[in-house]
């Protein structure tokens, strides 16, 4: 049985037995790269679930709204997604008993942009993972082609440390062994090396692209405030004008607000339509926090205390010293 079939069977069983009254998973779309989040209340709908190397959406955040109208929600979670679950648990935004977690080990997801750059977009019907390869189903005579998966993985998956779910009730498939192929801090160090003026120009250029669509915030499991300050009207903390200062203000405040709580899932950068390297900012903050308060990874253990969530007398005194 392949993973799609397992997902469908699992979902149907959960809904039939009323173990949960909602299942959140991924469906299919018209294009090979589409994998829209799917919401099921009825076992008959389970046939719409589809596993593919594009199941990138972290479904955890949907719990915030869906649990207002459901008793218990089952959802499919990859390793990175479970850090989002832990984030919501630790922030007391969901209760563990209200969720049923079906873990999906993940050896990395495919990047449509990389496929496109290699000339595979038009006429590509389906992408499937097989061991270390992607099998591309192509329109026309050739039929199928095997390509090395590593060349077409999302950057964030090359930097992944947790391919297996950290918390789950059930696991679909075998745990995967996936070495981290790239150091996620390498880019941070590279940007950091730039002289101050150059660094400023670099960020000016990147952030000037921001259109303030708030996709980064809306997709982020750490951005789970009941009311976001950027949505408040009176007072309005950040102006609506399309100005660099407002864009900087928004992006910098958001990254500071999730400091120590960012689970390093990279969803903000993935969702950004303007291709702004937001994770470079978030990881710079992770790096700073490590320097100041010691090694800490958010969303690993929901019972620990985030570095900025506590006070210790020996904490660095901050401004005066630096």
């Amino acid at each position, binding site marked *: 049985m392949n993973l799609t079939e397992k997902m469908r069977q699992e979902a149907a069983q959960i809904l039939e037995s009323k173990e949960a009254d909602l299942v959140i998973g991924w469906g299919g779309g018209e294009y090979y790269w589409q994998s*829209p989040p799917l919401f099921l209340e009825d076992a008959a709908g389970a046939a719409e679930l589809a596993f593919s190397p594009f199941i990138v959406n972290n479904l955890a955040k949907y719990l915030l709204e869906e649990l207002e109208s459901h008793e218990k929600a089952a959802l499919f979670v990859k390793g990175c997604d479970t850090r989002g679950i832990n984030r919501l648990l630790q922030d007391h935004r969901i209760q563990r008993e209200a969720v049923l977690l079906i873990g999906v080990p993940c050896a990395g997801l495919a990047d449509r942009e990389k496929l496109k750059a290699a000339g595979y*977009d*038009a006429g590509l019907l389906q992408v499937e993972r097989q061991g270390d390869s992607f099998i591309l189903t192509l329109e026309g005579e050739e039929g199928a082609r095997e390509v090395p998966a590593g060349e077409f993985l999302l950057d964030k998956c090359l930097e992944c440390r947790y391919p297996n779910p950290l918390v789950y009730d059930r696991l679909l498939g075998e745990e995967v062994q996936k070495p981290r192929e790239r150091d996620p801090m390498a880019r941070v160090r590279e940007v950091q090396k730039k002289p101050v003026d150059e660094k400023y120009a670099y960020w000016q250029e990147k952030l000037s692209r921001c*259109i303030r669509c708030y996709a980064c915030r809306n997709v982020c499991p750490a951005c789970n405030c009941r009311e976001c300050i950027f949505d408040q*009207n009176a007072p309005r903390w950040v102006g*609506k*004008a399309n100005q660099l200062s407002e864009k900087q203000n928004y992006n910098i405040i958001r990254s500071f607000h999730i400091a120590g709580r960012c689970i390093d899932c990279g969803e903000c950068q993935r969702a950004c*339509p303007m291709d702004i390297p937001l994770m470079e900012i978030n990881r710079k903050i992770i790096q700073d926090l490590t320097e100041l308060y010691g090694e800490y990874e958010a969303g690993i253990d929901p019972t620990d205390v985030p570095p900025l969530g506590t006070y210790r007398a020996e904490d660095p005194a901050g401004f005066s010293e630096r």
Partner: protein
Amino acid sequence: MKKIDKSKLEDLWGRLAAEQDLFLPVQQDSVVNFALWQEGSRVNLEAVNSLLPPKDLLFPQSEKIFSYKRREGELSFEEAPGSGPQVIFGIRPCDVRSIELLDPVFFKEPADTFYKNRREQTTLVSIGCLEPDTTCFCTAFGIQPLDAEGADVMLYDMGTAYLVSPRTEKGEKLAEEMGELLEEAAGAEEEGLQQQQEAAASAQEHGLDLDGVFEKLNDMFDHCIWEKFYRRCLACGTCTYLCPTCHCFDIQDDGSPEEGQRFRCWDSCMYEDYTHMGHGHNPRPGRRERVRNRFMHKLNYFPKDHDGVYHCVGCGRCVQKCPVNLDIMQVIEEIGKEGVGGEGHDR
């Protein structure tokens, strides 16, 4: 017909830019957007669609209406400076059509003077698409990827040169500015164009069927179909801000009682505060109502007021960039499947 050799484009842009603002699709990192041309700009005429539509050049994301100052009790106002002539070079036929869809909105009396001034001084130089993107579906709206009806000058890509076809008075004037950079096209090139056009005419239209969608929606405000789509929506503004036809704006003040400005800026019907009333009520309280509104506006409300013309040009930007794959083509297909007055009405 005249033609311009691609090797002469830099000269051409230099010449045009000396007379007016010239905007071209420019590559910045991984992103192609319309930007003011300067010598050395990395122009990319191969990318089918710019990431952001060029609507910003007629209807900026943020624009000053007036500024004010109070000095010793005297209040003075200053109007926003007017705009000058501009050329949008390399605009694709779908985006040209989107401007034709914005015109009646902003020209309707009382006309929007900011838009009108810009529009009247804008010359559109369009390049036809020989190879549309996989997410393009302009033909479903009757747009021809090779030809933009509303362009002032149409360029046809013939490999090493563009055939140049001025269409309007503004277009003729621009062709004059091009002067000796234009050459007489050879017969073979004109034949080549004919072949391209014949091939385009016999190419299949996008399979998306819009028949009856507008009429069906008259009766689908309370249909359960919206349940299916809204739940995945993140309520971000990506689809609206990347859309060449979305045109909602907000008016805001910025400054102190002594000095400041009033400006308008794009707004998105996906945002909570879009319909948040001063007394606290919000007639579109949730994502269900907001998602429905966006599609109803594109496919029903706008056509209702504009002779049945849909407010979508099939550029595919929202399809490509929606982080949760809320795909307008899928929405249209699902609406098409619904029978008028059938099950699902009155959820």
